[in-house]
C-alpha cells in the first residue's frame, strides 16, 4: 500500500465515521466516488488531504447536507421523532451523571469503572449460557452437576479469549445483541438457584407448611389427641394457619401468652380413624420441650 493509498484510506475512514449513523448502503453510496476523487487531488497536489479539504468530519457534514440527508443527530435517523434538542439535553445530563458518580466512587468517570468490569461480564455471560442450556435441556442447575462445572469453565475460558463481541458485529446487529444479552441476564436471574428454595422465615416455619391450617394428632391406638402443644427444635411454638381461628375469649384476651393447641378447631376432617375427635378438654400429654423450658406452657388446661 502506497503512502497515497494510506492517506486516502485515513481520510475516507474519517468521513465514514462521521456518517456512521446512516444506513450502510447510503454510506457506501455517498463515499463511492471519493477514492477516485482523492487520488486525483493527491495527483495534482501532494500533501495531506486535510489541508485541501478540511477535517473529514466537516467534509462529511457538507456531503450529507448537500445530499439532503440532514445533519447528524447522534441517534439513528430512523427515529426522527426524537427531538434533537431533547436528545442533546439527555446526553449532557448523562455526561454530568457519569462524572458525578465517578467522583463518588473515586474514578474520573463512572463508565471508566464499568469498563473495568468487562472481564467479569465475559465470565458471567459464560455462566448465563451454561445456566440457560442446562435449565432448558436438563431442567437443573449446572452448579449441582459436575458436567455443568466443566462446561462452565470451558465456556468461561472461551468467552474471555473472545473478549468484546459487540465491535465485531455489523452495525445493525449491535442493538439487538445488547438487548438479547440484557434479556438473557434477566432470564438467568429468574432461573438462578435461589428461586426454588424458600428462605425459612424468621418465625421458624418453612413455606412448605403454608397450606396447613390445622393439625390433628393421634396416639398409636388411633385415638385423637387434643390440646397438643407443638414446638420446634428451638422451643418456639409452632403456628399453622390462623392460630387464633378458634381461640376462646379467654385465650384471646387473657393474661397468659397464647400458645396454640392442636387441633385448633374441633372438626370432622378425619380421614382414617373412624372415631371423631374427642371434644373432651382432658389433655392427654403435657409438652416438655427440652430446648427452652422457659417457654413451656403450664400444663393445666384450666383457664
Amino acid at each position, binding site marked *: 500500500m502506497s503512502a497515497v493509498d494510506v492517506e486516502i484510506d485515513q481520510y475516507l475512514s474519517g468521513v465514514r465515521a462521521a456518517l456512521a449513523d446512516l444506513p450502510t448502503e447510503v454510506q457506501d*453510496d*455517498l463515499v*463511492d*466516488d*471519493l*477514492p*477516485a*476523487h482523492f*487520488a*486525483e*487531488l493527491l*495527483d495534482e497536489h501532494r500533501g495531506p488531504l486535510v489541508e*485541501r*479539504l478540511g477535517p473529514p468530519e466537516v*467534509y*462529511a457534514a*457538507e*456531503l*450529507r*447536507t*448537500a*445530499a*439532503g440527508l440532514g445533519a447528524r443527530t447522534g441517534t439513528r435517523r430512523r427515529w426522527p421523532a426524537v427531538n434533537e434538542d431533547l436528545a442533546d439535553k439527555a446526553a449532557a445530563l448523562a455526561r454530568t451523571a457519569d462524572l458525578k458518580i465517578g467522583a463518588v466512587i473515586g474514578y474520573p468517570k463512572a463508565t471508566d469503572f464499568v469498563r473495568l468490569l468487562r472481564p467479569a461480564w465475559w465470565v458471567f455471560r459464560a455462566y448465563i449460557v451454561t445456566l440457560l442450556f442446562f435449565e432448558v435441556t436438563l431442567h437443573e442447575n449446572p452448579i449441582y452437576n459436575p458436567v455443568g462445572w466443566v462446561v462452565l469453565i470451558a465456556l468461561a475460558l472461551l468467552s474471555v479469549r473472545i473478549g468484546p463481541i459487540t465491535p465485531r458485529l455489523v452495525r445493525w446487529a449491535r442493538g439487538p445483541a445488547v438487548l438479547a444479552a440484557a434479556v438473557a441476564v434477566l432470564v438467568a436471574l429468574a432461573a438462578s438457584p435461589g428461586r426454588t428454595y424458600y428462605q425459612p422465615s424468621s418465625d421458624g416455619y418453612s413455606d412448605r407448611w403454608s397450606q396447613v391450617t390445622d393439625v390433628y394428632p393421634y396416639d398409636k391406638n388411633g385415638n385423637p389427641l387434643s390440646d397438643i402443644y407443638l414446638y420446634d427444635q428451638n422451643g418456639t411454638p409452632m403456628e399453622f394457619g390462623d392460630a387464633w381461628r378458634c381461640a376462646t375469649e379467654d385465650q384471646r384476651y387473657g393474661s397468659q401468652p397464647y400458645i396454640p393447641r392442636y387441633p385448633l378447631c374441633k372438626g370432622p376432617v378425619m380421614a382414617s380413624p373412624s372415631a371423631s375427635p374427642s371434644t373432651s378438654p382432658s389433655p392427654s400429654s403435657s409438652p416438655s420441650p427440652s430446648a427452652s423450658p422457659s417457654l413451656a406452657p403450664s400444663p393445666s388446661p384450666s383457664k
Partner: protein
Amino acid sequence: MHSTLHRVDTTQLLKGVLDLAVLAALRDDDGYGYDILRRLRAAGLDDVGDASVYGTLRRLFQGGFLTTYVVPSEEGPHRKYYALNAAGRAQLGSSSKVWRTFAQTMDRLIEEPGVAS
C-alpha cells in the same frame, strides 16, 4: 432568540442554486465528480465545496435526474460519469426560468436609487 442576520456571501447563495449549477455543468458534456467541480470553478464559482458537489450529485441521481456509467481508467480507480437524462433536462429548463425571474427581480430591487421607479 439570537438575531440571524446573514451577510450575503456566495456560499449561502450557492446552497439554493447548486442543483441548477450542477445540472448546467452537465448540459453539454457528461462528467465525473471532479470534472463537474472543475467546470463550476472555471465558470467562476470558486467557493463551491468539494463535498457539496458530490452530495448534490447523489441527491440529483436519487431524484432521477441523472444517469451514471462507470469508465475504467488506466491509472487509478474507475470513474463514475454522470449524465443528464430527460427529467434532468426538463429540470434544468424549469429551474433556469425560475432563476432568471428571481435574478431579474433582485437586480431591479437593488438597482441604484433613482434609476428604479
